[in-house]
């Protein structure tokens, strides 16, 4: 951030730090910072405070900037009436499981594709990457039918967490991210481990994974946010009230609940991902850009 001030961009550094350029730069900066705060933080402020307003205050014109008579009760109602504790627990449970399944199966697969390179490895990788081009909506019906009656095993996964965990493993983007990271680990390290008689599993566990903590972190964060944000798939495969995720639960209750309570519930549902983002924003942003720029 601060360190890239040295590289030349569209407008030269010198031009921006003298006379008229300097005035324009600072005016523009202030305008953009104020504007962005208003556009991106403003709605969130409106959401948090709006959920504190009473039903009457919400319907009032013009709308008030601060809640005149804050009603924390809306948040309590949202928590109790929508059974948010249960919904949040479910979502958290699915998210943690998704992280574990992805870390185990996807890093094993990426390790094999990157270092062991078995026969047909590249074909398999190409087939995996091909799925990135297929929109989720196209597959939703056959995927749903598959989950209702798994081929050969004839198990119904409806309302089972595996219906979320296993499809999450089939994530070509994460395998690709992991493989690229593993590719950058020198072959000499692998050869040395082989000399010492380490098995492939041992090499993965004691050499590759410890070196790959940053990328494993990125993949984990992506898995958590993907489960937290997903809507249609959990709505279809987790139909009973006991297994719902938080987004689906709020949607289901939205019809018969006062809107400030729905908004209060939406705020509560958004808190975990916002906290994750604020803590891990550096990792998230670097994972996002390394996955797409180079190569």
């Amino acid at each position, binding site marked *: 951030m601060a360190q890239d001030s040295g590289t030349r961009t569209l407008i030269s550094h010198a031009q921006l730090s003298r006379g008229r350029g300097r005035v324009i730069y600072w005016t523009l900066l202030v305008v953009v910072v104020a504007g962005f705060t208003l556009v991106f933080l403003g709605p969130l402020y409106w959401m948090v405070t709006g959920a504190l307003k009473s039903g009457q205050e919400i319907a009032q014109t013009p*709308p008030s900037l601060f809640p005149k008579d804050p009603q924390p009760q809306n948040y309590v109602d949202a928590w109790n009436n929508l059974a948010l504790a249960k919904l949040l627990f479910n979502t958290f449970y699915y998210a943690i499981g998704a992280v574990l399944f992805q870390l185990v199966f996807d890093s094993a697969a990426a390790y094999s594709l990157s270092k062991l390179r078995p026969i047909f490895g590249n074909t398999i990788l190409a087939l995996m990457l091909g799925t990135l081009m297929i*929109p989720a909506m196209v597959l939703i019906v056959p995927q749903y039918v598959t989950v209702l009656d798994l081929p050969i095993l004839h198990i119904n996964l409806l309302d089972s967490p595996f219906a979320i965990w296993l499809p999450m493993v089939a994530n070509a983007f994460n395998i690709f991210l992991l493989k690229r990271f593993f590719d950058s680990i020198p072959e000499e390290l692998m050869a040395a481990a082989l000399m010492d008689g380490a098995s492939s599993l041992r090499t993965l566990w004691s050499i590759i994974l410890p070196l790959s903590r940053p990328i494993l972190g990125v993949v984990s964060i992506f898995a958590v946010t993907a489960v937290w944000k997903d809507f249609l798939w959990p709505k279809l495969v987790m139909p009973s009230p006991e297994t719902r995720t938080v987004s689906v639960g*709020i949607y289901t209750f939205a019809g018969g609940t006062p809107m400030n309570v729905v908004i209060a519930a939406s705020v509560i549902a958004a808190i975990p991902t916002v906290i994750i983002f604020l803590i891990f924003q550096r990792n998230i942003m670097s994972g996002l850009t390394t996955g797409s720029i180079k190569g």
Partner: protein
Amino acid sequence: MAITTVPQTPRNAGRPPSPYSAGPQRTSLGRKVRDNLTGHAFLIGAVLCFVVFSWYPMVRGIVMSFQRTRRGETTWVGWDNYSRIIADPSFWTAWQNTFYFTVLALALGYVVPFFVAILLNEFRHAKGYLRILVYLPVMLPPASALFLFKFYAYDPSEAGLFNAILKALHLPTSQWMQSPEMTMPAMVVASTWMNMGGAVLIYLASLQNIPGELYEAAELDGAGIWKRIRHVTIPQTRLILALLAMLQIVATMQLFIEPLILANGAGAEDSATSVAYLIYQHGFFQNDLNGAAALGVIMLVVLAGFSAVYVRLTAKQD
């Protein structure tokens, strides 16, 4: 996360085999077989998940679209599902709406992030803060963000946020989601707000890879800011620009949760019905999974058409 998924060709295709998997002194057949078996053992978990939840459903979707299941009995019906789906009066409306959304979303959600990224890249202060702000909405669960828009921003009375702003500026207020003309633009605004952060960050990263000398040379040649953007920035980021255009088309064609929450599905006078919503409607409400599968195949074919045009256009440029 569709915006960030970038397929690439396997990198080690042309590389010599790994010294790790086949040392020069140990190339016996048994050793090779064992190495390959170990490799596939590590792959099996992920591959099985791809087989069951991705590759097989792909084939099954196509097969289903030519079948019909009634009372547990499945029969081949040829193109019946397709003709039934196309005869549905909502079919053409849904495609029209979806294309309209795609075009609007490209105009707003494609151009704006690029210029926002150019702007952010010039700043030497508050960069981290601005980046966090732009990406923050991406982290919200879409359902949460859309309820905010639905109840507080697009409230058709003057108590709604947008109408209050319009009124304060002495502009005519709008009915938003209750007016068929405003439905789509309102959905595009909400969707762009929720999703543009990813594109901005990707552009920012690619802008930082442009060598500074190019700008310097252009400036010495007397090129102004616009000329520098046109002749340096855009050509230098061409590949990413083209790629994100394609990914955004794929993403916008799947328009679903916006109509579902903001417009309760179809919206005023069917103005919000999208193809993805129609798939959902047929498959899970009208109990017509085969028809929904046929619609999915049609969507795939349309997108494949787009991809073919895309490949043609980008191949010509190189």
